[in-house]
């Protein structure tokens, strides 16, 4: 029995096992890209878990770590890094949301993936995208995107109203969630629906990102509480960007909303409407939306710390190994020995 446990420990801590797991991890990373299976993350996770185990057993049983302090530090850093990455995977959240200018963040329009132990507080996020600007500059006959600034108001954790500007490298942080502005933005026609019975409802539809999908500015609107589904297309000729002087992303001045209801086609300007049997749909005007990336990972700082600790240990190990015998001096010594 004792020999079996010894054997297990020997194999678990073995450097050959480490090598095998490195190869498995490399293969897993390549395979990960070629599969769409819902469990595909496990082909990276399993080798990482086994490597963490291999490392832990090695740290406990391999005598080399008792005499080589730097090597011990490097491997402790690595083990911490693996553990933190593991914890991060089950506690983090990554998502995205499109917010219409002048409106509040709504969790119902957000999409996200979260770890099984993530305690979701997205419902508690209260922020409003007051407005945003994205500057462009002429560049080689085209334009290049410059800075993005989103003007936001939000309620902090104590319920205080805050105002600020976020954008590019400055995210909005509420309850540990970081909301980054993205290059995704576009146009959003606003609608008012006046049902013959009941209260009016307002809302907007987001067209695909612009200018990325410049030639596909279409979407559909499901009129609330009805079976009507209308097709929408935005049409304009006003050039948003100038290739000769600085410009900003803005609403085109000559925008017309093309609406198709079954076989009937309408062209609407702001304030115009279409009458249905059960109510009136008014095109209230054209607005814009901005895409935000939502990110939550409490372990970021600690992952960075563990990476630097491991690297510090590795650098110290190599220094200790190579510095006492510089290669050129060593070569000279060997030459003299030969002579």
């Amino acid at each position, binding site marked *: 029995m004792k020999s079996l446990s010894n054997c297990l420990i020997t194999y678990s801590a073995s*450097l050959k096992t*480490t*090598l095998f797991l*490195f*190869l498995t*991890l*490399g293969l897993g*990373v*390549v395979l*990960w*890209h070629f599969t769409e299976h819902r469990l595909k993350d496990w082909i990276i996770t399993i080798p990482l878990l086994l490597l963490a185990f291999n490392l832990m057993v090695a740290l406990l049983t391999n005598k080399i770590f008792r005499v080589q302090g730097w090597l011990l530090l490097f491997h402790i850093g690595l083990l911490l890094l693996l553990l933190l990455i593991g914890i991060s995977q089950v506690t983090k959240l*990554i998502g995205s949301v499109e917010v219409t200018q002048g409106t509040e963040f709504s969790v119902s329009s957000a999409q996200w993936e979260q770890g099984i132990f993530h305690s979701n507080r997205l419902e508690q996020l209260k922020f409003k995208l007051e407005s945003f600007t994205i500057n462009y500059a002429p*560049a*080689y006959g*085209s334009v*290049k*995107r*410059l*800075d*993005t600034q989103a003007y936001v108001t939000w309620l902090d954790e104590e319920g205080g109203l805050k105002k600020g500007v976020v954008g*590019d*490298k400055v*995210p909005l942080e509420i309850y540990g969630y*970081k909301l*980054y502005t*993205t*290059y*995704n*933005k576009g146009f959003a026609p606003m609608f008012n629906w006046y049902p013959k019975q009941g209260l009016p409802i307002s809302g907007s539809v987001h067209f695909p*990102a*612009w*200018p*990325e999908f410049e030639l596909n500015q279409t979407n559909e609107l499901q009129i609330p509480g009805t079976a009507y589904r209308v097709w929408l297309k935005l049409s304009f000729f006003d050039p948003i960007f100038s290739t000769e002087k600085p410009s900003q992303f803005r609403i085109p001045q000559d925008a017309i909303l093309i609406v198709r209801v079954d076989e009937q086609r309408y062209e609407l300007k702001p304030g115009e409407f279409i009458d249905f049997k059960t109510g009136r749909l008014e095109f209230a005007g054209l607005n814009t939306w901005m895409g935000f*990336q*939502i*990110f939550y990972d409490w372990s*970021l700082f600690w*992952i*960075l710390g563990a*990476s*630097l600790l491991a*690297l510090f240990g*590795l*650098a110290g190990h*190599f220094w200790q*190994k*190579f510095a006492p015998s510089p*290669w*050129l001096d*060593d*070569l000279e010594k*060997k030459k003299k020995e030969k002579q």
Partner: protein
Amino acid sequence: MEQEQLSLWLAVVSYVIAGMLAIFGVVFAKKYEKSILFFMLVGLVLHAVAIGLRWIRLEHGPYLTMFEILSSNLFTLMLFFILFYWRYKPVRPSAAVVLPILFIMMAWMMFTPHDSGMLPASFDTIWLWIHIGFGKVFMGAVLVAVGMGGIIVLRKYHWAEKKFANLPSNERLDDLAFRFMAVALIFDSLMLIAGALWAQDAWGRYWGWDPLETWAFITWLVLVITLHLRATFKLSCEQGAYLIFAVFILGFLTFYGVPFISDAPHQGTFG
């Protein structure tokens, strides 16, 4: 624009002369070391002028288009190798192995369209410089190791064994190569860490397994495996050399191939 092109062409000519002298020096057992160093330095200065003129004209550093990336990497690899050449006199003939590798980059660079690119907002950060800087040291260190590995492998052949007879033994070359591989691992790791910090700032995630991140990780993993094998198993000098080549090839493909065939954010976002 013309001065820029002229400087670049003259730089390449100087590098090629240095490379040819290095090859002739080994083949005909001649000592052209000072001339080689001189032509490499002249090439480097002219190359710096070409990069500087382009930088002033386009108002951004050489890190956007394939041409710019090849040019700046060629410059830093040359700089790294010149420093090595100046410091490590006993292994100077390795220039006959290293410079022909750089000839490939030079030819590729000269035949690549010299067009300009647009600087995405996400590239406007100090982390870009730090990330790229670490990456260049990593590739420079691996290039030097490739030089040592090249000599070890060439020595297998009778004609080359004689040509490189005056160089230190394979064991000594292998030792030097792996010292540089150790430096490469440190800087490759730093490059990944700086890249993660940049990605968190720019795209709101520190690691996203985009194609470049994936291949950068695989390169790092193969480098780790190489050093791990060297430290724990008795590899022959030749086996070590082949592993060094593998790291170099992977690093080369990751740096110069993947960013230009994927649509990942690393390529820049132009919306």
